[in-house]
């Protein structure tokens, strides 16, 4: 079956611009997660959704980062006023409740 998909695969943006990253989870997976992978910090948890609710936003690095999920399916991660330190690969994952997480291919964000 179809796995987790993410778009765009690559995004280059200028410092100060806003960006939106999209994640389509595996059909039927109620849990959705965002992670960030960067050279200096490794793989970091950002936010967790159960359905459309986000009970854990503790990993969002600043108030410039926000995320939403609609219809218990698609999620969008928004970064406002991007900074160079936001450059990273943003990974989305989904799972059934209390089961293993399956990852998408990621979005590589470059802020120039």
């Amino acid at each position: 079956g179809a796995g987790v998909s993410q778009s765009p695969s690559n995004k280059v943006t200028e410092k100060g611009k806003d960006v939106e990253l999209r994640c389509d989870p595996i059909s039927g997976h109620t849990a959705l997660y965002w992670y960030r992978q960067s050279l200096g910090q490794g793989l970091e948890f950002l936010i967790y959704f159960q359905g459309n609710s986000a009970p854990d936003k503790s990993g969002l690095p600043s108030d410039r980062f926000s995320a939403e999920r609609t219809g218990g399916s698609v999620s969008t991660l928004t970064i406002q006023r991007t900074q160079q330190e936001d450059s990273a690969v943003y990974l989305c994952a989904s799972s059934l409740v209390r089961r293993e997480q399956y990852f998408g291919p990621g979005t590589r964000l470059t802020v120039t």
Partner: protein
Amino acid sequence: AQSVTQPDIHITVSEGASLELRCNYSYGATPYLFWYVQSPGQGLQLLLKYFSGDTLVQGIKGFEAEFKRSQSSFNLRKPSVHWSDAAEYFCAVVPGGSNYKLTFGKGTLLTVNP
């Protein structure tokens, strides 16, 4: 603090040789344990998982891992490495009973020599 340690940043093996990648965790209770593999420019692929039960778990691509509670370890093994196994390997854990917020090790980069 809860943490995951992969002591080896980079390992090089010859094709056909055996492989063991080490992972240690620091958690109060037995967490759920995972190994993921990442090829260049790709996302993370789940190799295997441990939730409970048999401490030796089998995964895809001929990999296995053994959970040792006394050593807080979950080492990944493969008896004979193929050139296509060259990739970065990540050990990850979540607190038992709440499967979210994966905490990852720093990863081990595997190079396979012909």
